[in-house]
């Protein structure tokens, strides 16, 4: 046993002697570390999940400028002429115009599905997503269904859907269509195919009051040229007036993820307050410990214990509280984080190093708070006059 170990055993024995107040201090640290660790794990899982689901885009969106359209008294659409102009401006890139039809309301077994009816050329659709099952529509009686709608409404190839066309002043018309394919989930925010029902496009154009497109998606083969390409389109179409607006969803995505990270940091900071409160509790315990052991400190000094060893003894005491509390808090965070990840089916995000590292971070913070809380009482103890300490009643 070295002298430092002996000093450590002094600290450990004192904690054991006053086990109740030591336990309360440890519980404070456990709660603090658990709050930070568990919140860190949960926030990180959510962040990674969203970040993964919402992948960086290889496209940008051209949409009509609403203000310009209103001022001009025009429909808020992109015309065929404008689509042609876009294709001329950027001949090397894929230009995918889409529109939604409010003419038809899809229904399945008397229940309206609430999904959009989207117009997109079959070849263009194949550029945006792949088929999960089935085939693309080849006639007006066939449709494909987006991945989210198919999942939520349990739609499979072979299911029957009815398009209801509202006629003002007349009876509703019904167009039964067969689902021939289900699309893969894209999780895209720039084109909402996941929540759409997509009929054979020439049929839709013919049977709805098609005036133009809601938006045009430009798919890039080289993402680094996105800004230059957007400028080329803007220069071509906004030459006279700002007729269209261009959106790069990557900026929106990055901003959103940044805001999520900020939110996570704020939540962790709030959780950290509980740890600071635990630190105050440790400070209190340590001050009491020093006051109760004045005489012992005096004896230790008189038999040749240096100030530094006295300092170490009280630092060890607060560190022990910190290590025990942080250890238990860390294990609890791990278990609760595991249960959360298991519950939402995100175990792969839980086992990611970035997620698991949240626990050592929280534990380190717990230990650091304990150390800081014990520093002043330890300094006070080490600076005690040995004579006054020996005669303390």
């Amino acid at each position, binding site marked *: *046993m*070295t*002298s430092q170990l*002996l000093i450590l055993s*002094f600290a450990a*024995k*004192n904690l054991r*002697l006053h086990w109740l107040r030591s336990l309360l201090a440890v519980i404070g640290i456990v709660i603090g570390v658990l709050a930070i660790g568990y919140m860190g794990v949960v926030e990180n899982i959510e962040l990674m999940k969203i970040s993964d689901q919402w992948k960086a885009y290889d496209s940008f969106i051209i949409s009509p400028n609403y203000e310009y359209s209103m001022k001009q008294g025009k429909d808020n659409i992109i015309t065929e002429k404008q689509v042609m102009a876009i294709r001329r401006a950027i001949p090397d890139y894929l230009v995918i115009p889409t529109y939604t039809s409010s003419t038809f309301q899809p229904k399945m077994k008397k229940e309206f599905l609430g999904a959009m009816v989207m117009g997109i050329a079959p070849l263009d659709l194949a550029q945006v997503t792949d088929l999960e099952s089935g085939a693309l529509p080849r006639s007006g009686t066939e449709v494909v269904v987006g991945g989210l709608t198919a999942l939520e409404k349990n739609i499979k190839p072979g299911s029957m859907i009815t398009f209801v066309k509202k006629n003002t002043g007349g009876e509703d018309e019904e167009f039964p269509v067969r689902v021939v394919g289900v699309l893969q989930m894209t999780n895209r925010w720039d084109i909402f195919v996941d929540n759409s029902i997509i009929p054979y496009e020439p049929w839709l154009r013919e049977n709805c009051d098609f005036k133009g497109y809601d938006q045009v998606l430009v798919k890039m083969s080289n993402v680094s040229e996105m800004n230059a390409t957007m400028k080329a389109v803007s220069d071509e179409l906004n030459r006279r007036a700002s007729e269209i607006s261009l959106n790069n969803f990557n900026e929106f995505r990055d901003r959103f993820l940044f805001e999520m990270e900020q939110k996570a940091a704020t939540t962790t900071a709030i959780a950290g307050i509980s740890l600071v409160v635990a630190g105050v509790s440790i400070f209190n315990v340590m001050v009491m410990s020093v006051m109760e052991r004045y*005489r*012992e400190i*005096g*004896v230790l*000094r*008189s*038999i*040749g*214990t*240096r*100030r*530094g*060893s006295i300092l170490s003894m009280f630092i060890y005491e607060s560190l022990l509280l910190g290590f025990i509390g942080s250890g238990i808090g860390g294990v609890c965070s791990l278990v609760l984080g595991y249960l959360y990840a298991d519950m939402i089916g995100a175990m792969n995000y839980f086992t990611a190093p970035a997620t698991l590292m949240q626990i050592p971070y929280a534990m380190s913070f717990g230990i650091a708070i304990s150390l800081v809380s014990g520093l002043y009482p330890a300094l006070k103890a080490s600076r005690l006059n*040995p*004579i006054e300490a*020996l005669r303390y009643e």
Partner: protein
Amino acid sequence: MIYITNPDSPIEKVPLPWSIGRIRIPHPDSLISPTTTPIKPDTSNEPIISFHSVTKIYTLESGNVTGIEEVTFDIYPGEFIAVMGPSGSGKSTLLDMMGCLDVPNNGDIWITGQNTRMMSDNQLTDLRLHTIGFIFQYFNLFPLFSALKNVQYPYVVRTGRSGDNKRAEEALTSVGLESKFWHHRPNQLSGGQQQRVAIARALVNDPPIILCDEPTGNLDTKTGKAIMDLLSYLSKHEGRTVVMVTHDPRTAEYADRIIRIVDGRVENGVS
């Protein structure tokens, strides 16, 4: 185990040391009779403790209070000194100065040839660790540790070495504490046993100086006598310098000489 038998009271048997550290550990065969002859204090050489015009003034809110004033004396190796005087006369201040727990405002204190005046706190602490053993009236043992661990503590602080119980066991044996009590905590021991543990703790680093503050003040007469016999043995047979603060004239009779202190001043120097 050997015993000093008091001819006046044959029942009182005081266990004597096997001796520790720098001195002797006799062969067991020799234990049937006393192994050492008393050593006379060596006054021909340098004093082991020397006070030169030492003054200590405490600054309090109510004003300055003189602890000791212009105190000068020498103590030689192997001497047994009693410091006597009324309460508040400066006895404890004197002992604190000897124990390097405090430094004077004026004058010089020499301990084993070293002037304590210019020493840093760590140097004074190290001097205490290597040179001085303290024995207190209220024993001041560490309540959470066994007798053995209490004794072992200063030794581990000094050597930094791993669990060498041998030295602590020797010290406990030398003060006559039976091995069945070694793993008892202080609150499981009698007052006399606790004081023996305290003496063993003071001896474990083999210091040449033992400072005692009313070592029998908290003991009954019989136990107090046993402790005084032990302290006397440390001085007479092991050559340690023992300085003892006491109020009790019977205890002071064990001393080679008495330093009387009144109002912070040494009255007669030597008596």
